[in-house]
């Protein structure tokens, strides 16, 4: 199977239309799934680049409704997940938000601060609405814990590439973890954190795909580029990474 590429982009940075255009362009250039980020004031799992994009988007007046609008606009053309910190979703009321997001055409959620134990009470709600809640495995997890986490995992498993925050240059041997995951489930394993054009090939070696965030955000934050140039550079990067992981 072709190894997959998931791209994280921050909602409404620099603005809503840009995000929609970028998501559509990326999908035509090798990206299989878009992770649409909900900017949050305190993104503790993220490194400086994504934190900065979050803050700039908030400073531009980002509201949750912007993500809803972007989703409405692109969901029929893009395989879409929402990535956000739990408080952003909790404040919308999950009872209301999950049916609404399903209706909008969303595939599911990636919530980095909602570990397995805290997902239990919402499991039913996600299932009822036909939405996935992506499971995370970290390189600190024991085999026993991996078994618990991945047993109901759907779509893909988010293998965190190293102990740390997004966009750092750390490197860890993930082979044993991916092997452990594969003994318990057939759900594909995607590696995220620190994936860029240089590292993509190595990170994809044992996995079924990669998740790229900071490398795209780095382009979005370059002030000397026009919107069109940013989209072009992101698409070039997506193409390169897609080739690298499947080479």
């Amino acid at each position, binding site marked *: 199977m072709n190894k997959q590429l998931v791209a994280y982009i921050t909602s409404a940075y620099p603005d809503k239309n840009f995000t929609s255009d970028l998501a559509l362009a990326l999908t035509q250039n090798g990206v299989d799934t878009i992770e649409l980020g909900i900017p949050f*004031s305190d993104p503790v*799992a993220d490194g400086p680049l994504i934190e900065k994009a979050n803050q700039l988007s908030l400073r531009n007046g980002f*509201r949750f409704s912007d993500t809803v609008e972007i989703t409405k606009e692109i969901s029929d053309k893009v395989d879409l997940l929402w990535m956000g910190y*739990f*408080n952003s979703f*909790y404040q*919308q009321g999950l009872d209301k938000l999950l049916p609404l997001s399903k209706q909008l055409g969303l595939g599911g959620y990636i919530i980095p601060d909602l570990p397995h134990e805290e997902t239990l009470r919402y499991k039913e709600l996600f299932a009822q609405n036909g939405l996935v809640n992506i499971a995370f495995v*970290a390189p600190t997890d024991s085999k026993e*814990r991996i078994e618990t986490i991945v047993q109901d995992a759907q779509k893909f498993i988010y293998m*965190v590439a190293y102990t740390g925050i997004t966009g750092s240059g750390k490197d860890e041997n993930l082979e044993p973890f991916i092997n452990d995951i594969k003994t318990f489930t057939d759900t594909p394993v995607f590696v995220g954190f620190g994936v860029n054009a240089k590292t993509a090939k190595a990170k994809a070696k044992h996995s079924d795909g990669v998740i790229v965030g900071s490398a795209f955000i780095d382009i979005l934050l370059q002030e000397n580029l026009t919107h069109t140039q940013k989209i072009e550079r992101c698409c070039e990067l997506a193409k390169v990474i897609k080739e690298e992981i499947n080479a």
Partner: protein
Amino acid sequence: MYIPKPSKFDPDSLGHFDIFGGRYVPETLMPALLKLEKEYEQIRFDEDFWREVDYYLKDYVGRPSPLYYAHNISEELGAKVYFKREDLNHTGAHKVNNVIAQGLMAKRLGYKKVIAETGAGQHGVATATIAALLGLECEIFMGAKDVERQELNVFRMKLLGAKVHACQSGSKTLKDAMNDAIRHWVTNARDTFYIIGTVAGPHPYPLMVRDFQAIIGWEARAQILEKEGRLPDCVIACIGGGSNAIGIFQHFLEDEGVECIGIEAGGLGIDDKNGCSLQKGRPGVLHGQMSYLLQDEDGQILEAHSISAGLDYPGIGPEHAFHKENKSVTYDYITDEEALDAFVWLSQREGIIPAFESSHAVAYLKKLQNIKDKLIIVNLSGRGDKDMIQAKEMLHFD
């Protein structure tokens, strides 16, 4: 010797106090938290562990802290006011009680590095102190704004051998220091123990820190019974994260005749910038826990404001959120101005200079209704030495 007892307010096995608490952290940290929880279950009622804690609390910290009858203030108010003198502890505040126990736990678990977040710097100083004592490497995360307004404590931490990181993001206060401490922890989860300074963060911290601080209430209860032959009518404590408050309330919460009152930072006023998470916030998730938070409609965390760096935080420990809902504690607030008045009042009436944080609890003596003839304990959680530079700019006596 103090050993915690199980309480009817203990969280469930996932660390939930009803809907509050829990563990809202990146998966990378879960194994460390599960290990910590297991370890804590083993030592929570273990005599050997508590004997070691007891040794340091007595001979190093100077416990028990006195329960002092404040003659002058009592006379002025027509009430009987006692102060639980946590300000007399080594390092100047209640923070050290918790840090001794967590430091000993870190050592037991084999960690050589500890980190901590700090607001006013009291917890940072306490952590740096214990790291020096126990031979642990120590890094402290502090908001850049707090580094500036608490420069004496920053110097103390450095003198004690700790590395201090000034956090530049967001409001540059405690909230942002905690963000960076968590990021550092996620990155170094395998070899670093995070000494959280208050009854907040992911489970088991709120329970652990409560147990470690509840020696305050355990002593105060015995002391007031010895001095007065009865329990107090009110116990008052200030709340940032809420550890000194939970600590002293813990041994009075199940007594119906005792009203426990937690005082939040009213800042510039209840309808202006403040630190009143319980009065003005709603339940939400930040820093590993569900609790009351100051936030906008979309759940973006708002900046808190308080004269006191230790109370300048938009959240609160989850057990306080739980006590607000079950009404076992009364919560109110004191503004910057009222706190500053009380800072001067206590200094000049009793010769005790309280920390700005503790001044909020002291100030409530003037706000409390029907105070006449009441028997009251105020937790004097810290001393004011660290606030001198800030106070000097605001107060003029010539």
